[in-house]
């Protein structure tokens, strides 16, 4: 149940997060991603918090969805088990590199 509820919550985060991301990245004019603008943004702690939350939400939401597909469509037990492990390990690797890029670049 908690995993399902979190799926819904991350879904809501993604809707607003994506909206913010799109407005910022695609509709704010070209000087918004000049070197100075990007560096200023990257050093803003709130920007980092937003990015990490956005990253966690996206990764959780996506991989929980995959988990659903595996539960419903993969009947062979060993393959299903392997996929279940991958569904835990792959997002952890993604989150590790994601946070590393946001915090220590």
């Amino acid at each position, binding site marked *: *149940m908690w995993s*399902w509820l979190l799926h819904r919550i991350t879904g809501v985060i993604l809707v607003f997060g994506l909206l913010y991301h799109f407005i910022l990245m695609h509709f704010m004019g070209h000087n918004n991603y000049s070197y100075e603008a990007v560096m200023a943004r990257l050093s803003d702690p709130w920007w980092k918090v937003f990015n990490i939350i956005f990253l966690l939400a996206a990764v959780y939401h996506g991989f929980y969805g995959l988990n659903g597909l595996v539960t419903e469509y993969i009947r062979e037990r060993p393959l299903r088990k392997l996929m279940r492990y991958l569904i835990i390990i792959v997002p952890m690797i993604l989150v590790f590199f994601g946070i590393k890029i946001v915090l220590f670049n």
Partner: protein
Amino acid sequence: MSKFYTFRIKRYLPEESPSSRWDEFRIKLESMERVLDGLIKIKENLDGTLTFRKSCAHGVCGSCAMKINGLNRLACQTLVKDLPELIEIEPLPSLPVIKDLVVDMTLFFEKNDRVLPYLINDDPPPERERIQSQEDQHKILESITCIMCGSCTTSCPVFWADKEYLGPSALLKAYRFLFDTRDKATDSRLERITGEHGVWRCHSIFNCVEVCPKEIDITKHILKIKRLAVKKGFKGGD
């Protein structure tokens, strides 16, 4: 006004051939006649081996659910005038076919049994019936109209893929008792339906709502079960 219709029916006769085939029958029907009337005419006049289930013929028993021109519906409730001249009929999808349009509903009813589909109340019975207010009745009125024809569960893509999934019909039955104010077994019922192949497998695809011959908004009922389970903090499944 009468018109000729072509009935293209998916046949499966296990004693004749292990594979299924399509048979075509051309019959004249009045515009206010139903697909079921056509099937009965075919059986009586053209091919006596054609097999299908029917009982009440008035949309109450749920026996004659079948896939007509791509949609699961009741043959007794579908007027031929609302269909094109070519009418394609198949048995309900994803259940084992016994013969022609007759499917084995065992799996379907097993799922129904799993949600404890009966009133559970250990309080001493009152002198007369257990009274229910009109408002309480309205909470479950829509779900009570279910005739268990199997159209919804066999139209659900999750059920096609995952035969362990309870399916919309059984979940609707669970709703009918979960939200019945006279019923006391909320917790044990929730425990049975919140497992891995239970209520969380519903992804709001709405196929069940589209085909329900009683026009029940099944997805809405399942969502209400999810909300109740979240409120009660049920941990089962993921």
